[in-house]
């Protein structure tokens, strides 16, 4: 995973609440077997509308998405995170995130920063008044700066640390192989296995 410390890029205001993962990446794209190449899939249905924010020139190369609350609700598809990243987004800011989306973002290196809704509204106003405004996101200090506006954001400490270090979760857990083996040897014998049975 690519480490993340700071990022500067064009902010994109997305004035919608409860943006579900079916809108971020529609089911038809989940049949692919690759982990990359989902940039065309991002917000596919909404992008058919010429008025959609990503179809407006200053926003097209945006990398910091500023969205309404409960972003990423719905299915567990990690493709939603991959599509945002393949398009070029490194950061999503929202007043709240669906649990699974937030977890997936942290695993793939997309920064999901939680800001107060008042701060989100302020960012929307700036980005709409002056389209193309660049936003500075600093994970070390947990700050967002756009023009003269500055606010903080929340992210759980452990995810922040892993993002800063660019650490692979699996590698970290495999350091505990002995503890895992010890746990396994003490598991109850009535617990089922998936080995085929003929009943």
């Amino acid at each position: 995973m690519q480490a993340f410390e700071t990022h500067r890029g064009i902010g994109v205001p997305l004035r919608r609440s409860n943006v579900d993962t079916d809108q971020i990446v529609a089911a038809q794209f989940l049949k692919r077997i690759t982990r990359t190449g989902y940039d065309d899939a991002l917000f596919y249905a909404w992008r058919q509308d010429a008025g959609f924010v990503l179809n407006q020139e200053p926003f097209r190369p945006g990398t910091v998405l500023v969205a309404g609350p409960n972003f990423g609700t719905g299915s567990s598809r990690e493709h939603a995170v991959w599509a945002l990243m393949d398009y070029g987004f490194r950061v999503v800011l929202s007043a709240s995130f669906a649990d699974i989306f937030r977890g997936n973002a942290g695993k793939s290196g997309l920064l999901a920063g939680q800001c107060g809704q008042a701060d989100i509204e302020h960012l929307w106003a700036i980005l709409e008044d002056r389209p193309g405004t660049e936003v500075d996101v600093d994970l070390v200090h947990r700050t967002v700066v756009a023009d003269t506006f500055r606010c903080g954001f929340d992210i759980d400490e452990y995810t922040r640390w892993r993002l800063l270090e660019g650490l692979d979760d699996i590698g970290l857990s495999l350091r505990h192989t002995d503890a895992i083996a010890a746990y396994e040897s003490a598991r109850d014998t009535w617990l089922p296995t998936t080995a085929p049975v003929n009943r």
Partner: protein
Amino acid sequence: MLAVNPRRTLAQKIWDRHVVVPGREVGGVMSPDLLYVDVHLLHELSPQAFDGLRLAGRRVRRPELTLAIEDHNVPTKDIHLPIADAVARAQVDALRRNCEHFGIPLFRMGEREQGIVHVVGPQLGLTQPGMLVVCGDSHTATHGALGAFAFGIGTSEVEHVLATQTLPMAPFRNMAVTITSRDGRLPPNVTSKDIALALIARVGVNGGQGHVIEYRGNVVRGLSMEARMTLCNMSIEAGARAGLVAPDEVTFEYLAGRPHVSTGAPWRQARENWATLHTDTGASFDREVELDVDLLEPMVTWGTDPSQCSTLSGAVPDPAFSASPAQRLSAEHALRYMGLEPGTMMRSIQIDRVFLGSCTNGRIEDLRAAADVMRRRRVAPGVVMLVVPGSMRVKAQAEAEGLDAIFLAAGAQWRAAGCSMCVGLSADLLVPGERCASTSNRNFEGRQGKGGRTHLVSPVVAAATAIRGTLSRPEDLAD
């Protein structure tokens, strides 16, 4: 550190049992607990997880605690033929190759045990009280009905579980949802699907965010195991990653004799163990919600998220009366997409398609309830109804009971098992503008096909709607 309440909730008890390495300080921050996974269910949509393993030269730690089933993109008719959609076929082929390579048991399309992972797991007895169950699918919450801690994960986490049989998890908060009525029963033709929709309408689609929900109360005790699965299944639509019900005699009776459930002395040990699986008196919940269902009516969604719903006897609401500007904007958006006018009576809305199936409502009891409504009746002219059993076992059972004959005589289509119209990955799709009464779980824009309009309902409402052609409950049908 905060003092820990020694009285534990059911979810906390299950969590405690699965801690392999407790959270500790790493790099100046607390790491999450590392939890052991008892059963890991897979389907064809996570091939990238296997690619990750291969790239890193890792193996699957416990293939015998892992089970793969083809469900999301498989066709539900002509299943004896190769999958016509080349992209879907490539994905199913990838799953087959990966299972073969890593030694993971697999149920293929059309096989006796194939079906939707969340229908098959409980049906085989693979999900048991006190277990920790994960799957790369948000409706994994379903398995909580058996008193298991079950939640959906993303592809990176699937890879993590394959490699280590564990997951690092930050703790959930605890939410109690107590569902009661005077006599513990539900009003006629009101089901656990309606409870779920009423709950989501009450707390919102993010009401359970960060929480695991424990469903309690006399109504929950009176629900069948399958009805509890429907309720737990919809937890994610309230934003909760998991939902569960403390195991009781209903649970034990359901499990006894199932293929993967122990017998003899191990069964007795398991029963003893399960007896401790309940929330202690005095345990604290972070949030408590009480739902009185004496006056509950069948529910139906009018919008594009599951909280946008009303009673079937009600009307499409006016967004002007929304609780907040954001909700008003969402409701206006939703009504435009759904092609509905405020004030329209729900029961006057004409339907093009009816879908009976999914991990929410594709079990034998769901099919029985719908068949009861449709017996000796005909689907309304112009309406297309798909009946898709949740698993091949459900299909076989329904056929043994003659339910298929009832659906077919009514003019409905009887299909093979899969996710079908719930997820819009197979050929079972709406065309733009088509309106569907669906027993599935999500009414998001385009969920059942681009431009398709979804109304979430229970199986009995789906059946009555198919007969009348407008959103209806069984009481609306003439004898």
